[in-house]
């Protein structure tokens, strides 16, 4: 090995926990895990004291996209005067997330931010809500390991959400049902657990929250717009006499956050994302109990989830979604991404790679957010696109600006190495596990090399065909799934 020692891999159970709750298990991350005292201790630290590990390199990338720090009115004016379009700033936002995920040493917080941002979804595309979208992400980030009864009101009354689901202009005259319905179906109780009367009352409660669209973009509460009179929704009842409906909104959202159907809906999504598609009902019930018993606190639910036998039995059974695929591939290959200087720079271009595979971060065009199941991402189009991205990164063919790829020769010691040992070394580095027999056979198919064949630095494999080996590893179930 050019990089000397063979990667020392974590035991299978630890690999599983860290892989599922990170963006790819690299040798550097494994070192963090060992330093923390093993995967379980690492996970506890990640949940309860994420700031224990310094995260400078991840924090640093924010400065690569300065427009992310502009306010709504500033962004809007620049959009109108065609200095910089809102969609370009939103591209920056997605790029920032991808690069942050590649670098962060606090992956559990990052993953949970991503999880809630997808569940309480406000798409990054949109003529109006882009003005508030970065702030929306920051708001969710602040609550990602907190309590759902605090996260929910912060998200639902945020200007980005109000704009996206039509509540920012809804009035008592003919209340707009968009947010009132999706709040019940997508953000809390779940489909089938509310009535049309609930939707109407939900929409009435939410009238009054306002954003000054197309002008100042300021958020305010307009009591004149608030519908007053008794409201009843899913066990919540209120006289709602005060034209200032902010208090009734808070009480309503608190009621929903603590509702058993919300507990079930939310834990089903958590288990689908972090355990497996179609999680066992008994597991979801147990998690929902923990959620309710801990006043909607998220950390105890995650602790119960990873302690479950269902979690332990789920290793390697989740398909990576498009963004996870891109991020894990950059991490696996150890691609060094530098500050971008153009759209073709890798820090920027990786957005197109995620789009190519199927979805840029938070670009899902519908209110139900990026799917957490596997079937959605198990399509032939995705398969071809993943192979395409893996291929171009394996060869270092694209992107080529502001990026450094590892040289093929660095994988091979001066004295040479048997092909099967080389595959094992690559597997340990890219997949954090010894090469399986299936992987060895796959690699042999891809390259034409025999297992005992001696590979030296002037072998054709190293000289020009190394991408075939790397792509075969990245295209395998061991990388596509986690």
């Amino acid at each position, binding site marked *: 090995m050019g990089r000397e020692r063979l990667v020392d891999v974590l035991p299978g159970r630890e690999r599983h926990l860290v892989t599922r709750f990170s963006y790819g298990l690299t040798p550097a991350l494994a070192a963090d895990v060992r330093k923390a005292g093993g995967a379980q201790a690492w996970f506890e630290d990640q949940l309860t004291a994420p700031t224990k590990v310094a995260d400078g390199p991840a924090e640093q990338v924010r400065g690569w996209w300065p427009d992310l720090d502009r306010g709504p009115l500033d962004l809007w004016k620049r959009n109108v005067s065609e200095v910089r379009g809102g969609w370009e700033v939103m591209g920056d936002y997605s790029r920032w997330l991808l690069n942050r995920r590649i670098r962060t040493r606090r992956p559990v917080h990052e993953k949970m931010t991503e999880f809630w941002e997808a569940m309480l979804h406000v798409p990054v595309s949109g003529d109006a809500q882009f003005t508030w979208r970065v702030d929306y992400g920051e708001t969710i980030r602040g609550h990602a390991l907190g309590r759902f009864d605090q996260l929910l009101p912060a998200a639902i009354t945020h200007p980005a959400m109000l704009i996206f689901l039509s509540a920012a202009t*809804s009035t008592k005259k003919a209340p707009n049902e968009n947010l009132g319905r999706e709040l019940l179906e997508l953000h809390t109780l779940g489909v089938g657990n509310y009535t049309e009367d609930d939707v109407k009352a939900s929409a009435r409660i939410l009238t009054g929250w306002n954003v000054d669209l197309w002008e100042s973009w300021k958020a305010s509460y307009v009591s004149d717009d608030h519908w007053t009179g008794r409201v009843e929704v899913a066990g919540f009842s209120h006289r709602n006499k005060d034209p200032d409906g902010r208090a009734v909104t808070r009480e309503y959202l608190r009621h929903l956050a603590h509702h058993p159907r919300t507990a079930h809906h939310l834990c089903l999504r958590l288990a689908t994302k972090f355990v497996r598609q179609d999680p066992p009902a008994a597991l979801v019930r147990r998690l929902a109990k923990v959620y309710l018993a801990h006043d909607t606190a998220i950390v105890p639910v995650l602790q119960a989830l990873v302690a479950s036998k269902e979690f332990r039995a789920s290793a390697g059974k989740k398909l990576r979604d498009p963004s996870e695929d891109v991020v894990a591939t950059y991490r696996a290959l150890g691609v060094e991404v530098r500050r971008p200087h153009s759209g073709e720079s890798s820090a920027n271009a990786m957005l197109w790679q995620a789009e190519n595979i199927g979805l840029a971060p938070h670009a899902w065009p519908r209110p*139900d957010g990026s*799917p957490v199941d596997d079937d959605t991402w198990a399509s032939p189009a995705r398969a071809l696109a993943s192979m395409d991205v893996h291929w171009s990164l394996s060869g270092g063919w694209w992107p080529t600006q502001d990026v450094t790829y590892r040289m093929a020769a660095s994988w091979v010691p001066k004295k040479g190495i048997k092909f099967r040992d080389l595959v094992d070394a690559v597997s340990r580095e890219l997949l954090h596990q010894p090469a399986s027999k299936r992987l060895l056979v796959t690699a*042999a198919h891809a390259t034409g090399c025999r297992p005992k064949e001696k590979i030296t630095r002037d072998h054709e494999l190293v000289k020009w065909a190394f991408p075939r080996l790397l792509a075969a590893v990245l295209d395998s179930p061991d990388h596509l799934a986690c």
Partner: protein
Amino acid sequence: MTSPLAPSPGTGASACGCPEYTSLALSRRALLGSALVAGGAISLGGSTRAYAVGASSSASSSARRSPTGAVLVVLSLRGAADGLSLVVPHGDPVYYAARPRIAIPHAALLVPDAMFGLHPAMAPLTDLWTSGRLAAVHATGMATPNRSHFAAMEAVEDAAPGSRERNGWLNRLLGELPGSSPLQGTAMGGQIPTSLFGAQPAFVVDRVNGAKVAGADADGRRLAALRHAWSGRTPMDRAVRDALTGAQSFGAARDLPAGQPATAYPDSDLGRALSDVSRIIRAQVGADVITLDQGDWDMHTDLGTVEWGDLQRNAGDLAGSLAAFFADLGALGEQVTLVTISEFGRRVRENDSYGTDHGFGNVMLVAGGGVRGGSYYGRWPGLSDTSDADLLVTTDYRSVLSEVITRRFGVSTASVFPSFAPTPVGVMV
């Protein structure tokens, strides 16, 4: 490479000791229908990527066609389109009373009869209409209302209420047609829609030009490796194998340039997708059923008026894209029947934001081969003007689809729409 291919393909799979992954059971279908996810604003130019290794094998495309040569294109208007704005019931006075701001004035309507007329933004479709190749069926939908986008899409595309089986109506239709190529059922976009999900293989393609295996080499090693790695039974194993098979026979479509019809395709996601659909059909790679989506129909705000708004824009895109598509197909358009479906319709009364909320009944457009065009079909139930009022459903959408597939493919609908007795609509020859 000089070394011989070490293991022979096929022997490694059974001997392989790895993978718990293969035990992953095929499970619940995606909750979601598909959506055209590709970002409209950004795209990666193919010319920026050149790969050093290998030339793509120009696959031998064995052109095959369904026995009748028919192709069915199903266009989903995602988000629940407002059928009352697309095909306006100008003869019903309640329409104007319930929509004081957003109603389309009678004088602006196209090809009106005593009751209905098309939205003026649909002007590109008047030729198809007057030449008898486009029709509308109004007041269609499911038997009972479902106002959840996601549950309704699922139910519409399952089209088998009461059944717990995980297969969509188009997948069941494929089961009735000869052949087993994944290309027979092709979805444009990134995901398999509920309608195509099921036992029969399906192909999914975002853009025709991208439907190939990157780095595939003349010696076939990359394909052999991929087939070995993905010989299991998970959904992804199947997707990879369908991708490899499909991409191989898809060469003819990739080789065919995009059409340049006299009526140009709009520069939109839908325009680009239909241009690709036309290439797939013209290349005759064996597609029987093709699905695609047009998004952004969920107009709670700013649906707008006859002069401005999202409806005018989306309807114009729809009409322009369909007109270009049939112009592009030319005489081949006789073999192609296109149907539009939306998960539900909008309420009769407008809300306070120049929009409409979730409703029930809707309109379906039917265009192309075998259509008795130039007419409005369906029984009008009459509108009422209350805050809850819906357009009621008088024609089950499955009756429309049954008529299309029995007339075009000559198959029985008993297994496509189990325990459903269609009623005649009259929209197909």
